[in-house]
């Protein structure tokens, strides 16, 4: 069993509690306008447009037509990513569970656990289930960082060895949701309820956009009374860095002001989400 891994970061302090190894999978079913690593959205189609632009010749074409990436040679200049018209990346390793596990074992003495992220890691539930089953006996916790596109209720076994899910609730309301993330967002809200009832909701994150008072408020007003004090609620400020130019035009190139975000955190707390704070 193989899954496409965009990168593994041995030590991360921002992907859940404590020091964690973060595993970023390639591919995402959403197409969020504000995505700041859009090269993780699609899998490589093998068009080869990136080949010529690589200054260190780390990219080549395999006999089967796929693009081969030499990660020893790569200098991470991102030229290929800027060239790619498919919001994909040639810098992806197809890895077995054992290969990922090998990297986790190296970090194991220094970490509290692992976090699978993306892209959207739940595109590969079989892989995650096998990975978690092997990681948990190492005394490490497993967290899923998810956009909520996956039907968690339909597959309880995925959460058996998973300590919790960090869920993005990016948009509430079908029309804003369609604009922002490309679908009505109903699955995300269903997951919010299910994960809470299953005791597997680690945290919820909501992104606050500058000047979008109505949209920001509707999300916070929806989430806060549901989660109350049962999980952390991170209020995140929109930052335009890395956002695709065409969407930056719509969302603006301002960072959400700290005070504006603090206002929503206060609103969330007033609605019962006592563990709401700005990051």
């Amino acid at each position, binding site marked *: 069993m193989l899954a496409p891994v965009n990168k593994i970061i*041995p030590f991360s*302090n*921002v992907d859940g*509690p404590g020091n964690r190894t973060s595993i970023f999978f390639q591919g995402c079913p959403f197409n969020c306008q504000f995505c700041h690593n859009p090269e993780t959205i699609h899998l490589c189609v093998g068009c080869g447009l990136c080949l010529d632009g690589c200054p260190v010749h780390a990219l080549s074409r395999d006999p089967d037509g796929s693009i081969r990436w030499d990660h020893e040679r790569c200098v991470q200049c991102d030229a290929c990513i800027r060239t790619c018209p498919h919001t994909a990346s040639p810098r992806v390793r197809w890895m077995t569970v054992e290969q990922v596990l090998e990297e986790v074992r190296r970090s194991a003495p220094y*970490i509290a656990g692992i976090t699978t992220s993306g892209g959207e890691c739940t595109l590969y539930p079989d892989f995650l289930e096998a990975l978690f089953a092997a990681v948990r006996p190492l005394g490490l916790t497993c967290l899923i960082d998810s956009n909520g596109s996956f039907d968690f209720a339909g597959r309880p076994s995925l959460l058996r060895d998973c300590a919790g899910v960090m869920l993005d609730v990016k948009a509430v309301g079908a029309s804003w949701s369609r604009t922002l993330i490309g679908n009505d967002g109903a699955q995300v809200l269903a997951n919010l309820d299910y994960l809470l009832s299953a005791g597997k909701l680690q945290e919820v994150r909501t992104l606050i956009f500058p000047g979008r008072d109505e949209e920001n408020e509707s999300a916070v007003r929806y989430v806060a009374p549901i989660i109350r004090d049962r999980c952390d609620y991170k209020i995140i400020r929109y930052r335009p860095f890395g956002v695709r130019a065409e969407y930056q035009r719509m969302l603006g190139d301002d960072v959400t002001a700290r005070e504006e975000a603090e206002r929503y955190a206060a609103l969330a707390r007033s609605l019962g989400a006592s563990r709401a704070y700005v990051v």
Partner: protein
Amino acid sequence: MSEALNIIKDPTLTYRQELVGLARLGESTDTTLRYSDEYYAAKAKGALCDLNEGVMPFRPRYICPDYELLFSKGCEFLQLDPPRDLLEAVNALEIFYCHVPSITTYPVYLGDLDKLLEPFVLRENRDYAKKVLRLFLRSIDRIQTDSFVHADIGPEDSVTGRLLLELTEEMQLAVPNLTLRYDPDLTSDDFALACVRCMLKTAKPSFANHRMFVREWGERYAIASCYNGLMIGGGGYTLPRMRLYECALDAKDPDDFITRVLPRYVDLQLEYMDKRVKFIVEESSFFKTNFLVTEGFVHRELFIGMFGVVGLAECCNQLLGITDKRHGFGMNEAATKLGRRIMDAIERQVSAHTAPYCDAFDHHYRLHAQVGIDTDGMDDSPGTRIPIGAEPTMLEQLEVNEQFHPYFPTGTGDIFKFEETWLKTPEAVLPIIKGSLARGLRYFSGYLENNDVVRVTGYLVKKSEIEKLRQKKQSLNQVTLYGKGAQDGGHALDRRVQTYAGAGQ
């Protein structure tokens, strides 16, 4: 201009710094201690280095007095009675510190301050105790003006330890250097996290592997100067160092180095150390008449000679013909393996040598990963560190360092520079420290990239003080000058920053 005149006219030197410089110059006129011609040749080409320790060792390089004795018996020579309250305790220490010699002329070990002061602190109300400790720390910073002045705390949590951390954060001083003796069984996570927060904000305390030091030295060990492991009531006689990169230039390949070149240089350094140790003990007056000795604050039997090395990384790269350090020691299995072979060989030879006056250590010297000096430039990285600019990820760096720290009972350490977000997540830093110490790391230092107080190679300086020197103004702390040299020549402040992953938004 004569060297003396240079010193006298230098606008960046304080009066005391001039005095120390002139004293060194005077010392250098003596020719009593002679070594072999081969030794002088090795020194001339930079393969061996005496760290400007002076030609006449008139006192041990590092002295770690037994301050508990001062508190239980007082000091006759200094006319100090055992202190009865906190004020008397810090006053006794402040006086005593001024009479502890060292290579820097300042005391390199101030004691286990939390343990020493806790009984007195507990008898006062917290605000008063904090005020006294604030003045105590201020007097140390302004009187003992040298970043190699070092105090220890831990492993247990204490009111005094907490107050010292609070004051360290509030005062942002470069002096004293501070170490937490850390043992996950004895140090609570809560206290360790307070130390992590303080370390990120002020570059101290560092974390010493208490279990490892206790295994080697027993409970009564001190961390002094940069990160030197020594005995309380003892110290270090002398610390010369082999500059391994320059040593490697004589060898045609790794085997030639290990079998022919290295043993000769090790012998030369041992010969040098033997002569100096004998001189300090037999000729200089220190062990005969100094009150520290006659009143029992130190015992000759608890002193040791420290056998220093620097530049293992560059040595391995040179021997393997690696010209790009980014593919060398630390990033390259073969280079790291060679490093272990070299250290095994040095350790074996030094352990086989019968050293004079090292009674408490089975008559052997112990290895020390010397932290580098400002004039080393980029040729020799400190001890066994991976060169700045070639550091791999923190995980890989730890994996390499863990293999080398056990060689150095008299001290080694590594420094990690963290990006701002880690300050919000001390609970993410602690497991890194715990994990690495459990796997053989001896000493962990960290700081935040935008601090004013930063750790250069082992000692602390204020970036704002370095800036003063650049503007030809004086800096009270005599170590600021080394910091400037290490920054200019060794790029010591440019070490890799541990950034955060950058989660999606």
